[in-house]
Structures are given as structure tokens and as C-alpha cells.
């Protein structure tokens, strides 16, 4: 196990390095000079050169990368061009909101998806199975930002039950666990949960159907022993894979929350990205993407390690 752990970590390190290089290069594939957005259009050539030197853009790329990476490792992700505040500060405020939304959405999606998938796999071929398969196809095919809009139309505009945007009354960004705040969380979380739900349902259905087709289980079923023992066996064998899928989905939601956060004006990392794109605030874009991508790499690694702990077969693969 320790060997596997070390192996997995040594595999993740070069990937993390590569990810940081890609993020670093984002600013350099952008058309034009990153300085043009901070400098007035009539800035003198001397001022431009001065600023270029201060920002370090006159050095060779590997050196620039080294300096940037050193700073990033110390938590300095640069300064937002639009607000003038450190990117790390902006991120710190946003990341908790996104995490809360993504975790809740993953939980909802996992519970509903497992339920659909389990029932579908257990009664394979029946109308329940077909219905569940249909729902899961819908789940993976629906443009979730549009689904968010439709939910807003129904529950905010038409029924006026839930708020359409924001994370708290009066646009407050201090989260509290009271109804006034939780109301804001419901629609975005439900919208977001549709993505993992479809995928978890598909996975669990396949797992359950596979386990139930094993000979000794069908033997038990033939004897009419459709009891708790069979159920426990299925859950025990399906859990590691299902949990791994859940972990990966959490990662995808963290990175992919931008569209839903934009629809609901949810003040998380995705919303931050949206602002960065809108204002062409490249340092903010770069820093946010770096943090989210590294989060995803780490999460992938943790999922693999946990899965290996639960299921020794994985280690040998």
C-alpha cells in the first residue's frame, strides 16, 4: 500500500508541473500584450518599457516561469488587474462558496443517481430500468445552464418560491446557515446535481447488473433468497467504484461550475472566472484556473488512493 501511495504521488507531481506550465502559458497565448489592459492607450514607450521590466515580461520565458512558480508556491498568484486586489484574496473568498455548492450538488446527485441506478440494475430490462436509463440520458444531455434558467423561470419567476440569483439576501456575501441563505443554495445545487446524477446512475446500474449476474448471487436469487445478504453484498462490491465516480464528479463540478454560477450569480470561483473573462483580467483568470486544476489533480490522486485502500485489486492494475 505504501508503495502504491508513493507511486501515485510521484505520478501526480509531473502532471501538476505540466498543469502549472499550461496555466503559466495562458497569459502568453493571449493576443496582444498583457500590459495593454493596465496601461492607458496613450502611454509613452518609456512607461511601457518600465512597466514591462517591473512585471518581468522582458525576461526569457523559462525565467519568467520560475519566478512565477516560486511566487505561486508561496501563495502569491499576482494582482487582479480589474480590482487591484491580490488574486489569492479574491480566490479565498470565492472558493468556499464553490466548494459548498459542488459538495452539496455531488451529494444530491450521488444519492439520487445511486437510487435510480440501483433500482434499474436490480430490475434490469423492466420499465423501471428503461425509465431510469431515459432519465440518465437526459441528465447527461441537458445543457445545465439552460436547465438552471428553466428552474429559475418556474420557481422564481412563475411561482416566486425561491430567489433567482445571489448567495444571500440583499446581495450579502457572508454565508450563514439560515433559511434566508439556504434558499439561495437550493436552485443552483439542484441544477448542478443533474450532471453527476446521470453518470452515477449509469455506473451503478452497470455495477449492480454485473454483480447480480454472478453465479452465486443468481443462485441465491433462484432459491428465493432476495434478502438483506444479497443487498449487502451488492453494496459492498459496488461502493468503491461508485465512490470513485463520485469523487471525480466533485472535481468536474468544481472546475465546471462557471456556467451555473454565471446563471445564478453565485459568488464562487466560476463567477470570478466569468468576471475575469469579461474584463480580460488575465492574472485573475490564470490564478483561478491554476488553483482549480491543481485541486482536480489532487482530488484525482486522493480518489485513486482511497479506492486502492477499499479494493486491493486496484493496486495491481
Amino acid at each position: 500500500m505504501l508503495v502504491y501511495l508513493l507511486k501515485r504521488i510521484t505520478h501526480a507531481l509531473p502532471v501538476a508541473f505540466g498543469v502549472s506550465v499550461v496555466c503559466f502559458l495562458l497569459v502568453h497565448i493571449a493576443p496582444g500584450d498583457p500590459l495593454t489592459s493596465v496601461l492607458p492607450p496613450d502611454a509613452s514607450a518609456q512607461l511601457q518599457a518600465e512597466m514591462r521590466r517591473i512585471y518581468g515580461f522582458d525576461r526569457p520565458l523559462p525565467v519568467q516561469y520560475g519566478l512565477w512558480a516560486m511566487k505561486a508556491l508561496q501563495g502569491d498568484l499576482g494582482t487582479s488587474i480589474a480590482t487591484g486586489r491580490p488574486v489569492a484574496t479574491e480566490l479565498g473568498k470565492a472558493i468556499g462558496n464553490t466548494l459548498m455548492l459542488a459538495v452539496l450538488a455531488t451529494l444530491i446527485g450521488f444519492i439520487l443517481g445511486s437510487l435510480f441506478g440501483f433500482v434499474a440494475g436490480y430490475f434490469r430490462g423492466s420499465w423501471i430500468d428503461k425509465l431510469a436509463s431515459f432519465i440518465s440520458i437526459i441528465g447527461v444531455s441537458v445543457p445545465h445552464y439552460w436547465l438552471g434558467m428553466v428552474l429559475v423561470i418556474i420557481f422564481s419567476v412563475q411561482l416566486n418560491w425561491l430567489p433567482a440569483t445571489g448567495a444571500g439576501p440583499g446581495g450579502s456575501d457572508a454565508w450563514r446557515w439560515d433559511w434566508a441563505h439556504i434558499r439561495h443554495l437550493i436552485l443552483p445545487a439542484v441544477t448542478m446535481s443533474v450532471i453527476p446524477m446521470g453518470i452515477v446512475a449509469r455506473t451503478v446500474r452497470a455495477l449492480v447488473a454485473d454483480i447480480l449476474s454472478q453465479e452465486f448471487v443468481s443462485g441465491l436469487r433462484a432459491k428465493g433468497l432476495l434478502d438483506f445478504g444479497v443487498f449487502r453484498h451488492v453494496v459492498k462490491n459496488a461502493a468503491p467504484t461508485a465512490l470513485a465516480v463520485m469523487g471525480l464528479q466533485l472535481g468536474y463540478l468544481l472546475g465546471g461550475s462557471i456556467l451555473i454560477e454565471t446563471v445564478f450569480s453565485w459568488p464562487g470561483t466560476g463567477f470570478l472566472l466569468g468576471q475575469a473573462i469579461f474584463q480580460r483580467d488575465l492574472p485573475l483568470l490564470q490564478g483561478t484556473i491554476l488553483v482549480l486544476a491543481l485541486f482536480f489533480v489532487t482530488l484525482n490522486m486522493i480518489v485513486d488512493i482511497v479506492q486502492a485502500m477499499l479494493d486491493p485489486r486496484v493496486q495491481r492494475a
Partner: protein
Amino acid sequence: MSAAASIAAMAAIEKSPGYWSGVLTRLRRDPVAMVALAVVLALILMAIFAPWVAPNDPYRSSMIRRLRPIGTPGFPLGTDELGRDMLSRLIYGARLSLLMGVMPVIIAFFVGSAIGITAGFVGGRVNTVLMRTIDVFFAFPSVLLAIALSGALGAGIFNGLLSLTVVFIPPIARIAESVTTGVRKIEYVEAARASGASGFTIVRVHVLGNVIGPIFVYATSLISVSLILASGLSFLGLGVKPPEPEWGLMLNTLRNAIYVQPWVAALPGVMIFITSVSFNLLSDGLRSAMDLKA
């Protein structure tokens, strides 16, 4: 005598149906896939013949007839926030939406297959270098990578296409690599090597035919993701720029209209949804039609 005899023999040879004709036969017997195929073909025809199908000019705006409801005479699906005919814009929207959704997957299918098959067939150090690079891009959630790239490159159709292509190359290359690595170890490839065939000939005759099917099915399953992502980029103000009709961009510009004409504002999403479901169902049908053991 032998020439005539062999011609006669050849004429009489019983030919079994090939693999792909079997796939088509099975696909034709799948009603869900056939309906999905019909919808996809209808959408493509609609995109091609948009100028003849659309009742109005999709660009002509009017301040006095903004945001009319569904069922307005002359504007069966209402008008948008600038008074443009929704039906015509939805029909024209199929052009850019399909292009932005399908094109990246097609390009990524060729590039990703080439990378993956090369890595899988050559193996060794070439494999390590190619696949570790692919791993880096694979380490980004697809939405995040698409947004990172097009966010940095800026809005525009070409930048959107480029970003999405880069997003879909890694997953396709990964599948291609693993399928090819599997095929490379099978004896018929060894037998071909033992017959003195060059690596290129072996790939062309023995590898390609056996790996392209699984890669193709996987790529078709990405079209739906790509459509949603492409429209999503336009929804965020990346990708297609106004005033071009594109479903994601239309959703974006109509967002504030949900308080006035909510159902008109939701229409472009219906189009994305129908297209994406159809491609998904078609891909599923293809997947089960290609399973030889079924």
C-alpha cells in the same frame, strides 16, 4: 486453363457480409437510434437550407416589436430582445451551433487518433512522451480547459473551435492509445510482422480497421458534450460574437428577458437539448450495434 478456372472460382465465391455492413444492419433495427438519426439529419438539413426554410431575416431587428410572445402572427415563436424573429434565428442558429459542436470533435478524432495510435503502436519512449503530455491536458476538467483557453485567446469562432479541439484531443488520444496497445499484442499483428510487413503497412491493414471502431464510437459520444460546451462558451461571451445567431449566445442575450417572456427566452436551450439528446442516443445505438458479441 488455370486463369479461366480461377475466374470461375472467384465468381462463385460465397462472400460473407463485412463488419460495417453488419453494424449498419443492426443499427437499422434499433428504432431509438433511427429516430435520433432522423432528428440529426433534419437538423443538418435545416442548417444547410436555412435561407430557404427560415420565414424571416434573422438579423432584422425592430424596436417596436421586441419580445413578443410565442404565437404572435408572423412570428410563431415570438421575437427576441431586439425584435428579431425567434424562429428564423433558431433555424439559422443550427449553422454555427452544429459547426462549433461537431467540428472540434471531428478534428480531435483525427488528431487524437493519430497521436494515440502512434503512441500505442510504437510504444516505449515515444509512448511515454506523448501520453505524459496528454495526461497534463487530461488533468483539467474539460469545461475548465475550454474556458481557460478561449478565455485567454479571447472571443471568436476560430478561437472557440481551437479551444474545444484542444479539449477533446486528450480523451480521444487516450482511448486510441489503450485500444491500439491492446491490438498490438494480439497474434495477428505478430503474424503480420513475421511476414515482413513494415510498421506502416501493419497499422494500415491490421491495426486501423480494428481500433477505429471503438475510437469512433467514443468520439461520437463526445459530440453531445462538445455541443453543450460550445454553446456554453458563447453563453459566457466567448466563442460566437453578436449579432450572429447561435443558440448559446441567444440564451445569453435573452437572460434578462426571463421576467418578460420566459418561454421565449428558454427556446434556444430546447434546441441545444434536442440536438444533444439525439447525438447521445445515436452514439449509444452505434455502440451497441458495434458490439460483435451481441
